């Protein structure tokens, strides 16, 4: 599961000869060194790993910082800084730390650093976006230097504190230099050592020869953001970059047919959906109409045409590789006749008198605007008049926050907890901030599942909750994205479901 790509012996020898210089931060990489250039659409916004949750920033910090645990490609939790972890009491989770791990400056990584990290994120004065990840933890105990205990407020079946994404920072270094300093001067223990960062231009990293997991195969990593998708593809084709993210599907043929380029894809955990705002008055409060719309949308056709075949129809809000997913829930298959029949039953024969707005953001999710237009087109085939209202993201998310988007709105949900809990509570529980669905029976089930320690009983609760969602149809269930990446042919790497870019999993051939 922690397979390491093999590196030619010659490269390893050269690397060994050069690594002293590399660590000292010498200016230019020698020619024989291997360098990978990675182009995401957005630059990391800070080198401080405890502030933000957005993917491009996390992808930079995950290469410089280690986490307690990691997910393997299949989503299974594997040891990382923690060699073992167990549920020692209903409210206590215990981690045993790997010994001999040091930060780049030589400081040993101990339980005090873990405690400092969690407390830093929890501190309301920090205003960290990662706060919600640790809000179930009441306190952190450190019985010895290599044992950490997370004590939760309530019994929980889920490993608390997102140990697979929370970067462990150097407490001593942090206290010495203060908060603001961290934004440009990170101190981690990870596979790649920070060299320099010119914002929106280049982040330069060098392989860490003393990494506890062994020196990674590629000597240098450069993160060079390219915001415009057309330019990103062009830069890959000219060889200016080795890996690009968010490839629009129409470029697939061009990249896979290119002399030096290829396509990588991974079934993403991000689910796209159209929600009905059932908390606002309107025809969308009628369950029959909601079900009718689910039958009216032809998800496979959307995937085929708008996404170039890159998507997987979703039957539930929870992806199949998450704990809590229920295979018993059926899909809504495209059936226009049935949709019209249900609509008539709901009181709208031939969609008469139905004029609905489908809200969607632009530039947030892959092909969001195009999908909204296509879905509005499909819904209109029932006779209802559905028009789109497309808005820039921040305006849009502000309205999401106030539950003001109505009657229909598009949203994507990407979650890296690998558990149903966060999705099912944040999106559907009556009192969740952005939820536009209210059903006390559902709330009871999901709340019980959250604190149910027995996995069989827990799954039974989720089966019931997901069946309610299918029947009540607070969403038009759409699909999971298949993320597309373009890479140069010399790069060996396999894309991951969580959109992460761990350079230590990459290697180069020549």
């Amino acid at each position, binding site marked *: 599961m922690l397979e390491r790509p093999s590196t030619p012996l010659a490269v390893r020898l050269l690397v060994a000869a050069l690594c002293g210089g590399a660590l000292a931060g010498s200016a230019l990489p020698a020619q024989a060194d291997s360098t990978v250039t990675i182009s995401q659409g957005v630059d990391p916004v800070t080198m401080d790993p405890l502030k933000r949750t957005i993917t491009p920033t996390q992808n930079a910090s995950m290469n410089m910082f280690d986490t307690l645990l990691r997910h393997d490609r299949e989503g299974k939790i594997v040891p990382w800084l923690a060699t073992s972890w167990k549920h020692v009491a209903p409210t206590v989770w215990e981690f045993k730390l790997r010994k001999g791990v040091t930060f780049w400056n030589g400081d040993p990584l101990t339980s005090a650093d873990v405690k400092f990290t969690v407390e830093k994120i929890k501190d309301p004065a920090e*205003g960290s976006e990662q706060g*919600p990840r640790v809000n179930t933890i009441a306190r952190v105990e450190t019985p010895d230097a290599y044992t950490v205990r997370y004590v939760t407020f309530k019994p929980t079946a889920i490993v608390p504190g997102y140990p697979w994404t929370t970067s462990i920072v150097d407490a001593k270094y942090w206290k010495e230099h203060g908060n603001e300093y961290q934004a440009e001067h990170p101190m981690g223990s990870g596979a790649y050592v920070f060299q320099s960062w010119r914002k929106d231009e280049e982040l330069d990293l060098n392989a860490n020869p003393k990494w506890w997991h062994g020196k990674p195969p590629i000597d240098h990593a450069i993160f060079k953001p*390219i915001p415009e998708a057309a*330019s990103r593809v062009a830069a890959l084709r*000219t060889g200016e970059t080795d890996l690009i993210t968010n490839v629009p599907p129409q470029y697939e043929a061009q990249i896979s047919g290119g002399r030096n380029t290829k396509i990588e894809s991974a079934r993403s955990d991000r689910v796209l959906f159209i929600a009905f705002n059932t908390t606002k008055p309107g025809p969308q409060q009628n369950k029959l109409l909601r079900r009718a719309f689910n039958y009216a949308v032809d998800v496979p056709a959307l995937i085929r045409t708008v996404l170039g075949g890159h998507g997987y129809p979703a039957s539930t809000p929870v992806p199949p590789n998450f704990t809590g997913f229920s295979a018993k829930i059926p899909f809504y298959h495209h059936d226009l006749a049935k949709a019209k029949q249900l609509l008539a039953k709901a009181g709208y024969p031939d969609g008469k008198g139905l004029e609905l707005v489908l809200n969607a953001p632009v530039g947030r999710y892959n092909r969001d605007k195009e999908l909204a237009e296509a879905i509005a087109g499909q819904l209109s085939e029932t006779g209802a008049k559905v028009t789109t209202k497309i808005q820039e993201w921040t305006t849009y998310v502000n309205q999401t926050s106030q539950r003001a988007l109505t009657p229909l709105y598009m949203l994507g949900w990407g979650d890296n907890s690998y558990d149903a809990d966060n999705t099912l509570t944040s999106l559907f529980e009556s009192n969740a901030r952005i939820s536009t669905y209210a059903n006390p029976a559902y709330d009871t089930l999901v709340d019980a599942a959250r604190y149910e320690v027995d996995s069989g009983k827990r799954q039974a609760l989720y089966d019931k909750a997901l069946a309610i969602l299918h029947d009540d149809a607070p969403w038009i269930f759409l699909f999971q994205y298949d993320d597309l990446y373009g890479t140069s042919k010399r790069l060996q790497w396999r894309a991951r479901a969580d959109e992460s870019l761990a350079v230590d999993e990459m290697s180069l051939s020549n």
Partner: protein
Amino acid sequence: MTAFLIRRIAGAFGVVAGVAVVVFIILHLTGDPAAAMMPLESTQAEIAAFRHAQGFDRPLWVQFASFAWNLLHGNFGLSLRHGEPALGLALERVPASAELAVTALVLAVVVAVPAGTVAAVKRNSALDVAARLLALVGQSTPVYWLGIMLILIFGVQLGWFPVSGTGGWQHLVLPAITLAMFTMARIMRLTRGSMLDVLQSDYLRTAVAKGVGSFRLIWHHALRNAWLPIVTAIGIELGTLLSQAIITETIFSWPGIGRLAYQAILDRDYPVVEAVVILGAVSFVVINLVVDLAYAALDPRIRYE
């Protein structure tokens, strides 16, 4: 002259103050950064904590007073997005943007002024038609369209120039041409028009009658008189360039202030938007002041009372 200068400088301060007030009001109209910054799963309490930590829960007038007070001290606060001082973030982008904008401006002027002059002198000739056609392309092609075309032709197909980021002069070629096109078209039309006016004026006809050689005539008499509006235009175009730079910088991954500003606007990163806008306003008034003074130097007929 001194009185004029004082009035102009006072006016310049007025403009910057006006921009500061407008940017504050407009920003608060565009919505709350808390919703954009915090993840969707955060609870109402977490959003409230964020708003409190950033001081967004204070009455609007208190927020404005504190903004104005800090502004007077040159303090824009920490960026919500980056957690670093906003003014520093803005200032560190200025060199890259200036490099691109100045190159584009020089390119535009170097091409447009001679081309516009020749077009006017040889009115309706093939050269005139060619120049006007180029102006048409520059005027009617959206910046992003032109940029992507150049990338595909000169970057991908021919492989002559890199298509992203900074580096040597090669990196500057495509973005500079892209950014220059619109301004070039404008200055070319302007030069042509204003040369036509001068060429038809009485005193130039007199010069022709006196037998002044045609090259000398154009450079010494005509162009000198046509310079005035051209200099004005260049001053204003520099402002236009900086705002057009947003799209050019995005297409060519150029690490300039336009990209920072655009991202900050999208994120409602109030301190950074405020810093960039006020920085822009200051450079705008300074450029215009310099242009006005350049008038006086170029045209002694202008007097300021």
